[in-house]
Structures are given as structure tokens and as C-alpha cells.
């Protein structure tokens, strides 16, 4: 499973000014409502054949759910924010909002600088293309010119350690090889604000030291970091601030130790 990858989407809402006094990210009262399509009530338990019938008639209803409501926080330059919360609390949704993929339904979000999200490793990789071609394709996707990409190819090759495989189509690669290439490519440019989703904490078994080092170097280099993970140890070592999410709302925003303590308390109560 290569559920690691990164994607970079520079979509700064406001990108001018560089006073280090102004926070990198200011979110005020963020709310996101999302339409979902859901099949009508039906019971497969009484008759499994209904599965085909209702699919053919495509009976469904459309409803709106609220994924985030009234979220406010800010991230100052140099700060590292850890987003904690149970599954479905809205962590990934919040990261997508910050990456500029979703626009808030209401509220204000201002992001200063280029954000890059490391969300899902398989993204933008073309299985039919060779490793080398993929470096160029991803580089172009990230807004680089061919010349710039060419100058970075040696360092990518050096990290990915693919040897002669670099000229073979990606579909012949093992999961580990794909992961190495994807990480190497995605970390070609250093973003101002780095957004990391859970994978960094959960992939530990095959998350070798080398990749970890590369991501850590990226974290060091960025002016701001927002990471969503369940891994409390990782979070307390990386982050300075914590944001506890519950059902799309902020339960706590403050120093990381207090946030973790509060989260662990809530987990025990459940």
C-alpha cells in the first residue's frame, strides 16, 4: 500500500508582505459544509437482490453535512501545529482546506506563503511512464521548468537509489521503490508551510530511516508545519502547539503538552 504521497499545491490566498510578525496562517470561524450523495434506505438483509435493483434505478438522496464548524486558530512563523482528534474529526479536511483544495463555506482563512501537502504518495505518478519520466511529470505539475527539474534530477536519483530501474516503467516497481521515488520527487522544492497527513506516523514499518531523515530535513527547513497524526510521541517531539479536533470543532488550542493530555483524557473516557 503506497498511501503516501505528497502533493503540492501552492494556492496562497494572500501572498505578499513578509513581516515575520504577522502569522503565516490565520483562520477565523472556518466552516465547511459538504454535499454528499447517499443511497436511500434499503435493506439488503431481507433481500440481497435489492442491491442490483436500487443501483439500476439509482435511487439516492443528496444531503449536506457539516465537516468543520467555527474553527479558529493561527500559526506564527516557526511554529509547528499538531492536529489531533479521533477518526473522522476533520483532520484531513482541515489540511485540504489549508492547502487551498477546499474553499471554506464561511469564515476567513489567510495563508501567507506557499503551502505543500504530503498527503498521498501515488498521486500524479504515471504507471506507464518510467521513473525518470515521472520525475519530469511531477516536476512540471509542481510548476517547475524543464531546466530546473534537470538540475535536480541527480539529487533525486541519489536519494531514490533506483539504479537502472529508473528507466523502467513505474508499474514494475515495488512498493518501497515507488515510495522512495515519490518522496524524493515531492521533496524537491522546500515549501514555506508544510502540511503532513497521518501517513508519516502510521507507515513506520516500512518507513525507513532514510525517508524519515528526508522528511525531517524538510520539516526543519519549512517556516511552518501542520501535521495530523495519531502518533502522540511523534507529535510531542515535533510540535509546539496542539489543536484538538472533535466532530469538526476545536476542543482545545494551545501548548502541545496540554493538548495531548486533554486528548488522552478524552480517549480514556470513551
Amino acid at each position, binding site marked *: 500500500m503506497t498511501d503516501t*504521497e505528497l502533493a503540492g499545491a501552492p494556492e496562497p490566498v494572500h501572498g505578499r508582505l513578509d513581516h515575520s510578525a504577522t502569522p503565516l496562517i490565520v483562520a477565523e470561524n472556518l466552516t465547511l459544509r459538504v454535499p454528499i450523495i447517499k443511497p436511500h434506505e434499503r435493506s439488503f438483509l431481507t433481500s440481497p437482490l435489492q442491491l442490483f435493483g436500487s443501483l439500476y434505478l439509482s435511487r439516492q438522496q443528496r444531503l449536506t453535512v457539516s465537516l468543520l464548524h467555527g474553527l479558529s486558530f493561527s500559526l506564527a512563523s516557526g511554529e509547528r501545529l499538531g492536529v489531533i482528534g479521533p477518526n473522522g474529526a476533520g483532520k484531513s479536511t482541515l489540511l*485540504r482546506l489549508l492547502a487551498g483544495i477546499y474553499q471554506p463555506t464561511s469564515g476567513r482563512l489567510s495563508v501567507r506563503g506557499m503551502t505543500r501537502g504530503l*498527503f*498521498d504518495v501515488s498521486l500524479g505518478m*504515471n504507471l506507464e511512464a518510467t521513473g525518470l*519520466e515521472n520525475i519530469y*511529470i511531477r516536476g512540471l*505539475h509542481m510548476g517547475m521548468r524543464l531546466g530546473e527539474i534537470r538540475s535536480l534530477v541527480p539529487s533525486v536519483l541519489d536519494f531514490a537509489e533506483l539504479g537502472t530501474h529508473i528507466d523502467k516503467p513505474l508499474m514494475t516497481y515495488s512498493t518501497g521503490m515507488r515510495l522512495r521515488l515519490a518522496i524524493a520527487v515531492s521533496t524537491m522544492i522546500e515549501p514555506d508551510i508544510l502540511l503532513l497527513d497521518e501517513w508519516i506516523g502510521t507507515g513506520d514499518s516500512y518507513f525507513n530511516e532514510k525517508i524519515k531523515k528526508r522528511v525531517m530535513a524538510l520539516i526543519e527547513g519549512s517556516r511552518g508545519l501542520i501535521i495530523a497524526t495519531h502518533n502522540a510521541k511523534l507529535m510531542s517531539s515535533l510540535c509546539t502547539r496542539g489543536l484538538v479536533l472533535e466532530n469538526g470543532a476545536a476542543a482545545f488550542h494551545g501548548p502541545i503538552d496540554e493538548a495531548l493530555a486533554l486528548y488522552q483524557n478524552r480517549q480514556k473516557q470513551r
Partner: protein
Amino acid sequence: MPENSQLSTNLNSMIQIAAFGFLINYRKTMVGPLWLLIGPSLFIVVLGGLYAKIGATEPDKFIPHLSVGLICWTLITSFTNQAPTVFQRARTQILQAGLSLDNIAMLSIITSVIIFIHQIPIILVVFFLYGISPTFGVIQSLVGLVFLIASGVWVTRLLAILGARFRDLSEIVQAIMRIAFLVTPILWMPAVAERGGALGHYLLYNPFFHFIEVVRAPLLGNTVEVGSWIVVLVVTAAGNIFTHFFSRSYLRFVPLWI
């Protein structure tokens, strides 16, 4: 003008990404993108003679008419049929924030144009075989082509947004385009005096006819009626203006719909 140079850099990268994708798509085939020439050529060779007979026209008038019409039609359907699913197919890229929505739509437009350009040699061969050598007509035809592509831009951007919200759109568009192919003079020629042929004056209400006409007629040495130019200009301008405002209001919802 830093903004302009950024725009052209972006356009440049999009062309490179589209070309990459276009070529890699054919990697495993033996003939590669040459398939784009083989398909329409077969169509023209096999059906050209037959439909010239059915329509009681002379092959040396009809075959060039069919060739140019068919290749323009390929471009038009490429715009309309790809558009409604553009964002659905790019779901991963959008949700991982690889490319902006505008760039994804632009990639689709560029790919259609690349395919079109790749098919132009068919027209050249047909013109050579039938001794057609348009001179000034080429320039006029290129102007028509610019408007055809400019309309492809708004059609793609508009249908892409609508298609993300209403999944039925893709089926609807395909059904309409199948009929439009037959009611547009590609496989048949409008009678010279009564321009509409079997369709009578209804032909004038077919926007596809006007768009093909401004590209095809100058090449074949026919004059384009002023009415066709007016339709093309108005549709292109109005469509792009409307789509601009539509996109400003609704584009941001696309990631939530797909």
C-alpha cells in the same frame, strides 16, 4: 509584465504535461500516435466513395469536404465529450492539490488540440491528391480555427463544472453529439442553392455547422456567409464571458462534488 510571463510559463508547462501524457498513452501500441491518422483515413477511404454516391456528389468535391469536416468534428467532439468528466477523472490530482482546476481543464483542451494538429496531415494528403491548393484561404481558415478553439475553451470549462455536479451530463452530451454528427454537413453536402439541403433552413440553427464552415469553406475555395461569422463570433464571446462569471461563482465547489 511579470504576470504575463507567469501565464506563458504556465501555458508552456501545461503543453509539456499534455504532450507527455499524450505520448505515454500510446507507449504500448506498436504504431503509436499514428493510429490517429489511420482511423480517419480508413473512414474517408471506405465511406468517402460510398457517401459521394449516396449524396450524388462528385468525389473530388466531396472527399475534401468530408476530410476537413471529419477532422474538425473530431476536435469538436473531443472538447464536448471529454469536458463533463474532466474533473472526475482528475479526482486524485485535485484532492492532493497537484494542479489547479483551471490547469486541469486547460490540459484537456491542449490534449484535444494536439490530437487535432496530429491529424492535419490527412487533410494535406487529400488536398494533394485532389489538387486543391488554397492560398489566402488558409489564413482565413486559421482565423476560424482560433475561434473554434476559443469556443472549445469555454465549452470545456463550463461542461467540466456542470459535469462534476450533474453526472448525467456526460451521457446527455454524448447522445446529442451522435445526432449532431449526422445533422451537420460532414457526411453530406448542403445543396448549393438551398443551402440547408434536406434539413432546409434548420441548418442555420446548428451552431456546429457554422463553426465547421468558417474553418472548412475557405480551404475549399468557398465563401463563408456573413451569418456564419456572426454566429461564431457571438457564441465565442458570449460563451467565454458567461463562463468567466459562472466559473467565478461555482468553480470552488468542484472539489466538494467529485
